[in-house]
């Protein structure tokens, strides 16, 4: 058996309507090596990964080339053969474990299913193997956790089950599709480490799909940079990171470095901010369920304070479940606080926007993470922007048209976009429109809720730059909510760190991020991927030491 496990030759895949998706891809993966596919979304990396398993999503078809897995031609192999190969010769690790596990089946059963189908292991063996893996992936009480259903474990744990499922039959090749990008940074470190360990220990080859160069750098032996369905550059990790040949690769690296703690250094001096707070949040308690004496049955914010001065960018950092989005919604008036107050330049704001004055609603605008759900896909951009203009300023007709063009210019989009539908523009562009709509209201305070987290590194960088520029040009006050310190570091004047609905640390971002006091902040800082090999190990080590400290500092409730 050759050391070549996967050989892709001049692979061409197109949509049934004839649009090329993969355009002459050739690559090979040998035993024990990890080939990373990196590229922006839409570069076709996932399609390629799935093709390695002989799977094409509906609406796609192979138009040429070959994919040989362990000597079998996957594109033409009959279904039974494919079924025998999948999971056994090559396993798949999906991006979102949450969606990829059947909600109605016990995790254990799902993990061992393919092994039993293939009769590669007896039921007993399979269970034993699974339990070993659970333990190995440091899942809590491995002997019993298999009986749980997906909804009963955390996102990080699900991802580990996913990995366990991938390792169950000790395949020659693991195809990992963005295995960590759905996770919190701190969790990501752990999962990455485990995955890397697993790959080494099992001497498995891996095809590792990711958009995050920094992440990839930690695990890949070789990297293939993809763009628009073709491989731009392929080479050893070392070489790609330190001596990229292609401009696109350089761009990627630049963006990656820009969005890192390193960015703290070259952050421009902050503008002179007026001393008085434009917006202040005092002891806000908010959550879900019945409110009794100022406390909701399920609280996500336990008395949070926040001070925002005019024309400054304040970042609110926290992982999922920290309550940062709730905070944003409370300020925007989408979520009524159980107690506490939000005041804008003196005047106290009502809990729900319904009770706020039109002016107040106008002065605070919110840009949310998911541009897809933020823009009505059935409305042309003209209508999306126009509505806001008409609504707040009663501007119509030519005046409105002119204003809209201004707005487009502001977010640097071409005029003809006005006639497009959100479905016809890219994620980054959607986010720009998202901002443009907020600006259309001519707000004083702009809340950006995770606006970059759904974007590829390069695009994210551009959006960050845009936000900064808007602040400088329009003198906006910006509340920037994110889970990603790297992003924050490059933009925020001050930082507030949230954990389990409480502020654990707040201050000038330079200080907080370079010399964090709170162990949790330290952990966050340590978890930000750096574009250097070996970082992962350091981070993991750091994490281990902090873990104990965290347990002690852990707030009782959460």
């Amino acid at each position, binding site marked *: 058996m050759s050391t070549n496990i996967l050989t892709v030759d001049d692979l061409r895949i197109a949509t049934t309507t004839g649009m090329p998706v993969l355009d002459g891809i050739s690559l090979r993966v040998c035993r024990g090596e990890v080939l990373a596919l990196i590229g922006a979304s839409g570069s076709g990396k996932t399609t390629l990964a799935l093709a390695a398993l002989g799977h094409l999503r509906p609406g796609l078809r192979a138009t040429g080339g070959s994919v040989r897995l362990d000597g079998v031609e996957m594109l033409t192999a009959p279904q039974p053969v494919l079924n025998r190969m999948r999971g056994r010769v090559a396993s798949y690790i999906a991006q979102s474990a949450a969606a990829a596990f059947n909600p109605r089946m016990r995790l254990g059963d799902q993990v061992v299913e393919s092994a039993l189908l293939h009769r590669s292991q007896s039921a007993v063996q399979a269970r034993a193997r699974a339990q070993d893996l659970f333990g190995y992936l440091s899942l809590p009480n491995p002997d019993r956790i298999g009986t749980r259903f997906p909804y009963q474990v955390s996102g990080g744990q699900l991802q580990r089950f996913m990995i366990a499922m991938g390792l169950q039959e000790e395949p020659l090749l693991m195809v990992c599709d963005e295995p960590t990008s759905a996770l919190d940074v701190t969790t990501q470190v752990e999962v990455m480490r485990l995955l890397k360990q697993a790959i080494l220990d099992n001497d498995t080859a891996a095809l590792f799909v990711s958009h995050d160069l920094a992440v990839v750098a930690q695990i890949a032996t070789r990297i293939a940079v993809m763009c628009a369905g073709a491989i731009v550059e392929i080479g050893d990790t070392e070489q790609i990171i330190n001596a990229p040949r292609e401009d696109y690769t350089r761009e990627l690296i630049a963006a990656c470095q820009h969005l890192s703690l390193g960015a703290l250094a070259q952050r421009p001096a902050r503008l002179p901010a007026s001393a008085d707070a434009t917006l202040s949040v005092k002891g806000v308690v908010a959550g879900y369920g019945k409110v009794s004496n100022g406390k909701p049955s399920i609280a996500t914010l336990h008395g949070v304070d926040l001070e925002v001065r005019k024309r400054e960018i304040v970042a609110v950092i926290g992982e999922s479940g920290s309550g940062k989005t709730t905070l944003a919604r409370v300020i925007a008036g*989408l979520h009524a606080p159980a107690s506490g107050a939000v005041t804008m330049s003196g005047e106290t704001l009502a809990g729900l*926007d*319904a009770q706020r004055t039109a002016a107040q609603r106008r002065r605070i605008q919110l840009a949310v993470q998911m541009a897809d759900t933020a*823009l009505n*896909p059935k409305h042309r951009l003209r209508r999306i922007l126009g509505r806001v203009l008409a609504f707040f300023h009663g501007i119509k007709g030519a005046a409105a048209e002119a204003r809209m063009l201004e707005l487009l210019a502001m977010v640097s989009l071409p005029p003809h976009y006005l006639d497009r539908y959100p479905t016809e523009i890219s994620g980054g562009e959607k986010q720009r429109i998202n901002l443009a709509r907020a600006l259309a209201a001519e707000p004083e305070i702009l809340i950006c809720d995770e606006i970059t987290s759904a974007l590829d590194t390069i695009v994210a960088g551009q959006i960050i730059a845009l936000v900064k520029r808007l602040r400088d040009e329009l003198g906006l006050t910006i509340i920037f909510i994110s889970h990603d310190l790297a992003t924050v570091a490059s933009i925020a004047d001050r930082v507030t760190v949230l954990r389990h609905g409480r502020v654990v640390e707040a201050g000038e971002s330079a200080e907080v991020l370079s010399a964090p006091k709170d162990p949790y902040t330290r952990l966050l800082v340590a978890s930000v991927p750096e574009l250097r090999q070996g970082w992962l190990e350091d981070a993991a080590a750091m994490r281990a030491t902090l873990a104990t400290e965290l347990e002690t500092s852990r707030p009782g409730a959460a």
Partner: protein
Amino acid sequence: MTGASTSLRLSPTLAFSTVVLTMFALIALVSLVALPQDPFDFITDEPLMPPAVGMWLGSDYLGRDVLSRLMDGTRITLFMALTATLLAHLIGDTLGLLAATRGGFVDTVLSRIVDIVLALPKIIVGLVVVAALGSSVWVIIGIASVVYAAGVFRIARALGNDLKEMDYIKLARSRGEGMGWILFGEMLPHVVRPLATDFAIRASFAILFMSSLSFVGLGVQPPMADWGGMARENLGGLSTNPLAAVAPALAIALVSIALNLLVDALDGDARH
């Protein structure tokens, strides 16, 4: 959008259904101006006569021309079914979306009312209403529309519940937009397709429902006849002129099939 148009041209089922539906639509229109025979006149003394020259579907139980009555009935049947379904949707969609977005009390009350309507057998409801108001085209349309509005309500409400979680709805509300804009400006464009699908299927149900109304004698007033009524009144003639009963039934089946295939075709194309 472009993908849709391409597959529109491809699908044979779609071709079939559109052909059938347009055919019946044309028949309905033609029946306004010209018919082979007077649908109410007694052409022959031989009731339930098998097909013959000039009476291509034979005669009905009173010696009238089945073909002409069938064509005339096409107009009545389609008119009643479509109007009823349309009304059902006007009521059901508005209330359903409203219940979803408003939630709380409004939602509870509306949902309970709908439960009651659904819990009562359709035919019985029809019977009682006809007993109270007498039977006429509009009464029947009324019955069908109310009965089906309940079903539509639930669908619209479900769609609305998904939509109202969308950020653009939330943002619009936080902007201070009124219900009018939320329902018809933001939501409607999204629910149009699924509701159109429902419309087609429900229309075919409506035709069947009305035919069973005619069966229990709650149909339109004679000599007017909807398809169900025709099939019913000529049922006794299956031995001599089966067409008199089968032709209208066939028409019912054809239209329903066409409507359903249309939906399937469009949905299939929507999935890609």
